[in-house]
């Protein structure tokens, strides 16, 4: 390595680590026993008590379970809708195709504060207020447009010849899609799935408005209700926040390569 490259990496490492310090700070607080809190940056003693407290309380555990149920269901529903639409945009030529692409771009830009006014009324009328189903339905609205564009660009990269061979044997496009294209684009599905997971896992506004209690509220909303409820218990809040970021980091760690590819492909035109 040249000397300049070494300096470059030192500066880069310092910057990245500095920017990650706030997260480290929160993780340390989550692992600090309450009597040692805010005395030193790195606590004198560590404890898993704050984390085990979350799991020993059935109500708190339910918040966590809600987050998982909502995120996983949203991923499944989004991938089902977006892979079909992404394939349609990638493989067919039709007159109004550009309108669909435009629609996918525009629906990503709508102000959620306006939509939530309607959602509040509609969800109540449907009797879905304070249910996880309601959140799955509205979260999918956020993820489908971007996942569609992401999967379109991934299908664009898969040669048509593979499917055409199957279609000569009498397969319809739909069969070719399910039997051939979908299985070989698993990496792209992971990328889009990761995106949908992150979006629904972290969604706040809809969850805040459409739920009231443990039956449907996700942990990501409940954690903010810890603030100033009685006296803020910072170590309990940090423990809940830590549980909210562990799945995010693990999933990203597993899929980061395809995720980063899909992210830039979906947002920048290929």
């Amino acid at each position, binding site marked *: 390595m040249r000397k300049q*490259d070494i300096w470059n990496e030192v500066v880069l490492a310092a910057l990245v680590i500095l920017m990650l310090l*706030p997260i480290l700070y929160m993780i340390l607080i989550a692992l600090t026993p309450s009597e040692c809190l805010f005395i030193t940056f790195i606590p004198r003693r560590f404890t898993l008590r704050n984390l085990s407290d979350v799991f020993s309380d059935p109500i708190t555990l339910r918040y966590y379970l809600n987050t998982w149920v909502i995120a996983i269901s949203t991923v499944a529903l989004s991938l089902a809708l977006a892979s079909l639409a992404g394939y349609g945009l990638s493989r067919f030529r039709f007159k109004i195709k550009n309108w669909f692409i435009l629609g996918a771009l525009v629906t990503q830009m709508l102000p959620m504060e306006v*939509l939530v006014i309607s959602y509040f009324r509609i969800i109540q009328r449907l009797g879905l207020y304070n249910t996880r189903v309601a959140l799955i339905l509205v979260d999918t609205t956020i993820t489908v447009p971007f996942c569609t564009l992401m999967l379109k660009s991934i299908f664009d990269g898969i040669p048509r010849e593979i499917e055409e061979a199957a279609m000569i044997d009498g397969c319809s496009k739909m069969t070719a899609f399910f039997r051939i294209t979908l299985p070989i684009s698993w990496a792209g599905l992971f990328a889009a799935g990761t995106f949908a997971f992150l979006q629904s896992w972290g969604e706040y*506004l809809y969850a805040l408005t459409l739920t009231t209690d443990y039956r449907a509220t996700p942990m990501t909303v409940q954690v*903010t209700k810890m603030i100033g409820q009685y006296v803020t218990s910072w170590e309990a809040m940090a423990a809940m926040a830590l549980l909210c970021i562990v799945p995010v980091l693990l999933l990203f760690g597993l899929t980061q390569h395809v995720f980063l590819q899909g992210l*830039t492909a979906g947002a920048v035109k290929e």
Partner: protein
Amino acid sequence: MRRLRESEWILFMLPASIYLLMTCIYPLGSALLLGFYDTIGGKTVFVGLGNYIKAINDSALPGVLVNSLAFTAFSVLFHMLIGLGLALLLNVRGRRRNLWRALQLIPWLLPASVVSCIWLLIYQPQYGLLNTVLSKLRLPFLVRDWLGDPGTALASVTISNIWMGYPFFAVMILAALQNIPSDLYEAARIDGAGGWGVFWYITLPLLRPVILTTSLLDIIWTFRFFDLVWIMTKGGPIRATEIMPTYVYKTAFYNFNFHYAAALGGIMVLIMICLSIGYLRIYLSE
């Protein structure tokens, strides 16, 4: 391509289209429609532009718009600058580059509520990280209630938003940097350009499209971003951090004035349509 069964595209497009029509277009339309009605004496009456005229005369609205503008402008500007710097640092061959690229993205991946909790801890007035560090550095005159002081609240919230947003710029700009052919740099160097010359005359002009599209996308996202401000300050103290999203939300769900909230939302939509047209023109022309 075989022309046979070409209409099969409808089968592929139908599920997502119907879904978004029901869960996105219809709710948007019905919310906007709500803005043209009002409840007078227990009855819902069509009032035309009445709510919009009320908004023009709303003495709180100019301040809210200014806050929104400042929050959005400073967030996006620093997202772009920090992201550009990081992308340039990341665009050097090295074995660990993928590791740094992944690590730097982490703040962007976190749920907004977790980011808010982290920064509430940092800004916490008695024993938060920021005030502790400031008093250790013997700068006690800087110690303050960052989120409780109307003079610093908006800046503090904006800084936490900058922290969670710049990584997206970094990955987008990095992807564009990696597409610049290296012979362009060589040619510039042979012509005698130094490091700054190459950056100014080769790199920056080639990055222009990605910087423009990402900035516009980020402007739109930041302008409608509710979570962080709501969790950290609820728009307070005394409207110091009130932005359009929190104002619309309060009008709808604290004052239960859905009609006026919908009209305020209509104003947001108008602003975002203007921004979106700008974005789409660049996106579709590049």
